[in-house]
């Protein structure tokens, strides 16, 4: 953006697993930390694959796969401290993992047993939001709350490339900028909004949107977990220190379908996917660990075994998830008495009883 601009894409680990330097961002990770990141990446991919399988078997109504976006999610998710609050879309299973949300709780929404199965305050991880872009405003409001109650954390909000077109998202930029709110906008540009390529949403790289609103934007290799971690950590730190918002564009690729009901062969060419497979977010960490002899086969096998176990466990617990009772429909609509709803509840209970007799 300025004359001596840094390389447009922040990258710290190449697809081949080489560590590279970046003038503005760097990170010092212990072998232990790298192995831990690797483990996260593998486990969330496994959770995701399992969920896809569960949908194929009719156990879920639908699933939104994160395949290919693991690094963006684990990198940014691991940058969060306990005090930070995260607002996801419907695809942030990797971030949920970092926030200690039991994966089975993610399935409830997709199985149709609830609209959101965890307590946001318990995990500092908000519920999934389906209406595109809405959560960006919630996140900014939350960040304004931190400013007002003197809390320690910052806020991060996830959204997609498609979402960048929504009025709400742009209003959230206005608010964040004007109030200098402690927030990080984390846009996973997976280059597709269902069937629409990124060109239908923007003719310039999305990270530059931030400049138009008066705060910094940075594009990071979204398949590079090191870079995602480093850039997010820095942005969160800036936010906490009163330097206001940052927009991070994680440049990545949606390797799977939009959701399990989608058929991407209708709108994109196979070669694109093939090219991106070479940039796989997990393979490069594996290569790095290997090359630098930071992990041995035993480690990789152990992670794979853990993933298998996790998958099996998830499968079992998904299938065991109890259906809600019909009367659950009437709960939590209001926090206290509501005459008409109470009447409806009573009437419907009576109606159902009629069938039993």
């Amino acid at each position, binding site marked *: 953006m300025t004359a001596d601009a840094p390389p447009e894409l922040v990258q710290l680990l190449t697809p081949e697993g080489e560590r590279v330097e970046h003038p503005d961002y760097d990170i010092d990770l212990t072998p232990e930390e790298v192995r831990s990141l690797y483990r996260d990446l593998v486990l969330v991919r496994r959770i995701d694959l399992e969920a896809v399988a569960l949908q194929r078997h009719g156990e879920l109504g639908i699933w939104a796969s994160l395949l290919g976006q693991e690094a963006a999610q684990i990198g940014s998710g691991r940058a969060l401290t306990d005090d930070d609050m995260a607002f996801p879309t419907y695809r942030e299973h990797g971030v949920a993992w970092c926030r200690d949300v039991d994966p089975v709780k993610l399935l409830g*929404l997709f199985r*149709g047993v609830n609209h959101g199965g965890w307590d946001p305050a318990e995990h500092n991880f908000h519920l999934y939001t*389906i209406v595109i872009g809405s959560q960006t405003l919630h996140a900014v409001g939350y960040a304004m709350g931190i400013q007002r109650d003197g809390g320690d954390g910052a806020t991060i909000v996830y959204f997609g490339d498609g979402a960048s077109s*929504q009025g709400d998202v742009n209003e959230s930029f206005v608010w964040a900028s004007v109030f200098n709110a402690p927030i990080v906008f984390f846009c996973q540009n997976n280059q597709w909004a*269902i069937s629409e390529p990124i060109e239908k949403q923007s003719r310039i790289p999305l990270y530059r949107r931030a400049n138009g609103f008066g705060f910094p934007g940075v594009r990071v290799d979204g398949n590079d977990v090191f870079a995602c971690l480093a850039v997010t950590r820095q942005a969160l730190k800036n936010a906490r220190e009163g330097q206001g918002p940052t927009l991070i564009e994680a440049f990545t690729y949606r390797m799977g379908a939009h959701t399990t009901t989608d058929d991407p062969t209708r709108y994109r060419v196979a070669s694109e996917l093939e090219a991106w497979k070479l940039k796989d977010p997990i393979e490069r960490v594996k290569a790095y660990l290997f090359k630098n002899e930071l992990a041995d086969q035993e480690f990789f096998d152990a992670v794979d075994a853990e993933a298998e176990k996790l998958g099996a466990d998830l499968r079992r617990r998904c299938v065991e998830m109890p259906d809600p009772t019909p009367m659950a*429909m009437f709960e939590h*609509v209001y926090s206290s008495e509501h005459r008409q709803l109470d009447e409806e509840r009573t009437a419907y209970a009576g109606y159902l009883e009629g069938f039993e007799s």
Partner: protein
Amino acid sequence: MTVLTLSKALNEGMRKAMEDDSKVLIMGEDVGKLGGVFRVTDGLQKDFGEDRVIDTPLAESGIIGTAIGLALRGFRPVCEIQFDGFVFPAADQIITQLAKMPMRALGAIKLPIVVRIPCGGGIGAVEHHSESPESYFIHTAGLRVVACSNPADAYSMIQQAIQSDDPVIFFEPKRRYWEKAEVDTGSTDWWAPFDQAQVVRQGSDVTLLAYGPMVKTCLEAATAAAEEGRSMEVIDLRSLNPLDTGRVFESVRKTGRAVVVHEAPVTGGFGAELAARITEQCFYHLESPVLRVGGFSTPYPPSKLEEHYLPDLDRVLDAVDRAFGY
């Protein structure tokens, strides 16, 4: 005569409209290459090009707002809102602009825009994908609001909606998209005006009033009731605003009882309007109050519960029983 699914009938109807009038455009999210998430616009971009079948940025207010601009320039945009629950970001453009601009301009402006909304539940979807937001638009003067319930109507009504010089909110019963029926695409003789109701089953004891997805449910209820000796007349309203009160009143005056069935929550729903009007105009003919069967006064529940939320044959028959209890 061809056998078409409801979704294909819409597709053929739009294709016809586009062939007949080069000003007709299709716009929305994923309507182009993908042909829409329900494939209702399948193949249209291929045949009419990207200038006439427009994959838009992901923003509903933008879709309706730019459609208004295109209409001001003489085009006739047909906008798709991907799912019912996503119409609300466009609420302002629909309610304060689309509905009101023609009157604002004292008639100097016409906005021949169709807003297609796949609506209703029953497909096991996640939140916001199963709602029935018609009441919001029925209450908004300046809009015409219609709902199709079968392939033939889908075919003729979408074309009439596109031909209309007024903005039309066009509801499509998404769980009926795959239902098939014969459609005569070769002639328009059979077309009924799209603001007319249709008696889809004759009966004498009670009038069932429905539209969109609930028409089939009511027909099934009527079949079941017939076996028990109760004769139900079923009216497919088709147009919700304006309302074909003539046919409705005629039927209710004959039967003396009416039950309105819709998926939207009963509270403040369209059933209330129907009940109020019927009562006002048919007061001395009514042997029981007009009863309403609909969604509960809750957000649309998770899909495992939707069979409880949505009116079904049993709940319709239960309401009819209650009507006879007066």
